[in-house]
């Protein structure tokens, strides 16, 4: 259902109401007209044209420029017949033309069909006809000669604007409907996948780990796919984040795998876009370090703790740990991997990064990012 349909319907209503008004004006003052009978003939033509346009404008396919142009010409002719049929005295004292307010209809139709410019163009044509009727008779400037055309001009511009808005709203509505349909479909898929595929993958992972050997490798792969698939079907949601903000939990959760658990609070952890991007990069660097130094089978945990004034992220692994002095030694040797890609990034955010390790009991990297980032 088009949003423009009501506009066309209201033009039809306007036409009928104006037609009745024109007929009433003609009926109560026959003495204003030089030929009352022919004036009624004009009303008859207007009636017929009202029926034709109402039927024509009702269907979008028939709203052609041919019909719109015909509308303008016939209305102008009916209007101009006033010059012959109305007495000069009546015109001089400001009696309405035979068409009365009916003359506004084509300008409104043009405005709805073509927007502000088309509406104004049609209003200028009709307005020029009105002025040409009155000007030669009144002689000089008269306010009544211009009031009608000016009001018509403004009304046409306004209706054109509303029409443009409604066209735009219609497009937006259609896009929203498409998006909604797509997200409903995604939800349906997510439910189905959740009910079947994820359950099976979790089972394969579990059984594989128990069977050991090659099956354990299969189980690990199944676990990775489960994590990836879950992130896919639950992802893309950034509910409470405002402009320039992101949910740190959602971003870090993408780093989860069979060996990396990402543990977050239930509610989103909102930080500035920069803080989320940099922290995620730092966490990724820390996980890479785990892979490099602790082997392919070391497990890691990433814990997000929203303390309010700051957010802390702890990355712990169950590897062999770093011997005392190794970090300082690495930095001294110019291998700045850890201090640069982790500490450097977090320091730029006004936060701190601590690395602690107990030989034999894994390594822990603790990042603290303050909420209120100082202007750089």
């Amino acid at each position, binding site marked *: 259902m088009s949003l423009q349909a009501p506009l066309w319907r209201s033009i039809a209503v306007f036409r009928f109401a104006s037609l009745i008004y024109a007929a009433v004006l003609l009926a109560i003052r026959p003495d204003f007209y030089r030929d009352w009978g022919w004036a009624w003939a004009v009303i008859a033509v207007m009636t017929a044209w009202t029926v034709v346009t109402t039927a024509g404008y009702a269907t979008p396919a028939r709203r052609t420029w041919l019909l719109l142009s015909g509308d303008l010409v016939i209305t102008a002719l009916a209007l101009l017949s006033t010059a012959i049929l109305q007495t000069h005295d009546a015109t001089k004292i400001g009696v309405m033309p035979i068409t009365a307010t009916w003359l506004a209809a084509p300008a409104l139709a043009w405005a709805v069909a073509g927007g502000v410019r088309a509406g104004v163009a049609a209003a200028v044509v009709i307005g020029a006809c009105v002025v040409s009727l009155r000007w030669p008779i009144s002689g000089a400037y008269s306010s009544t000669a211009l009031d009608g055309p000016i009001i018509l001009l403004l009304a046409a511009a306004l209706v054109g604007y509303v029409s443009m808005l409604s066209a735009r709203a219609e497009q937006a509505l259609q896009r929203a409907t498409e998006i909604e349909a797509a997200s409903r479909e995604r939800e349906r898929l997510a439910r189905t996948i959740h009910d079947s595929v994820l359950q099976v993958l979790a089972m394969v992972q579990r059984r594989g780990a128990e069977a050991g050997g090659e099956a354990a490798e299969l189980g690990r792969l199944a676990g990775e796919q489960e994590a990836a698939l879950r992130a896919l079907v639950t992802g893309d949601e950034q509910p409470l984040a405002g402009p320039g903000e992101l949910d740190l939990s959602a971003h870090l959760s993408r780093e989860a795998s069979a060996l990396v658990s990402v543990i977050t609070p*239930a509610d989103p952890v909102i930080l500035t876009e920069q803080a989320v991007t940099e922290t995620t990069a730092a966490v990724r660097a820390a996980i890479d370090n785990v892979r490099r130094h602790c082997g392919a089978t070391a497990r890691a945990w990433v*814990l997000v703790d929203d303390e309010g004034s700051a957010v802390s992220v702890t*990355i*712990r692994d169950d590897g062999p740990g770093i011997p005392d002095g190794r970090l300082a030694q690495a930095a001294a040797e110019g291998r700045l991997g850890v201090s640069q890609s982790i500490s450097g990034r977090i320091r730029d955010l006004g936060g701190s990064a601590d690395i602690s390790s107990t030989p034999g009991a894994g390594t822990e990297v603790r990042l603290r990012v303050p909420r209120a980032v100082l202007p750089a």
Partner: protein
Amino acid sequence: METADSSGATAMRVMVVDDHPMWRDSVGRDLGEAGFEVAAAIGEGAQAVRIAASVRPDVVVLDLQLPDISGVEVTRGVLAAHPGAKVLILSASGEHHDVLGAVKAGATGYILKSASRAEFLDAVRRTAAGDAVFSPGLAGLVLGEFRRLASDPAPDTPRLTDREAEVLRMVGTGMSYKQIAERLVLSHRTVQNHVQNTLNKLQLHNRVDLVRYAIEHGLDTDPR
């Protein structure tokens, strides 16, 4: 076969609630082989609530993804029907709010479906013994919930002690109670108590909240 476990005592009665037949069978088989009595294995939450009083399970192993009612409602309903039961959540995923809701409603454990059989059976045993079973994920959720409550100025809002927060953070980074006890120079039991306390505070607060809600909205209305 299901008459007695290794200790010779009466077998623990376990009710398995999971809508996926594959998981129901597998979990049931594991439990049976380990000497537990699988008193019921069902796929619908409403049915679980309905039969809880007559089945009288010691432990309910509950999947949060059920076709009819939410895991939170099942937890609340089962515990109301049979207060002696302990609820252990066995879930495939991180439906964070559901897990937190179920824990606040009285569930005392949460373990992922990807956990090994040994971890799972250990979790059931500990749940039956009355211990809270915290996966790292649950520790993160509970910690997050206390952080959220920290901004609530009401005087009866539960707070974490520094030690409890420290312990939760360690559980949340995958450390075992044994590792935590060594690191903090505490007994294993003390670590367990700290974890248990955090859960008790949340559940108590949740009950107080429900009562307050019921009073504010007239006692005849269903709280929630």
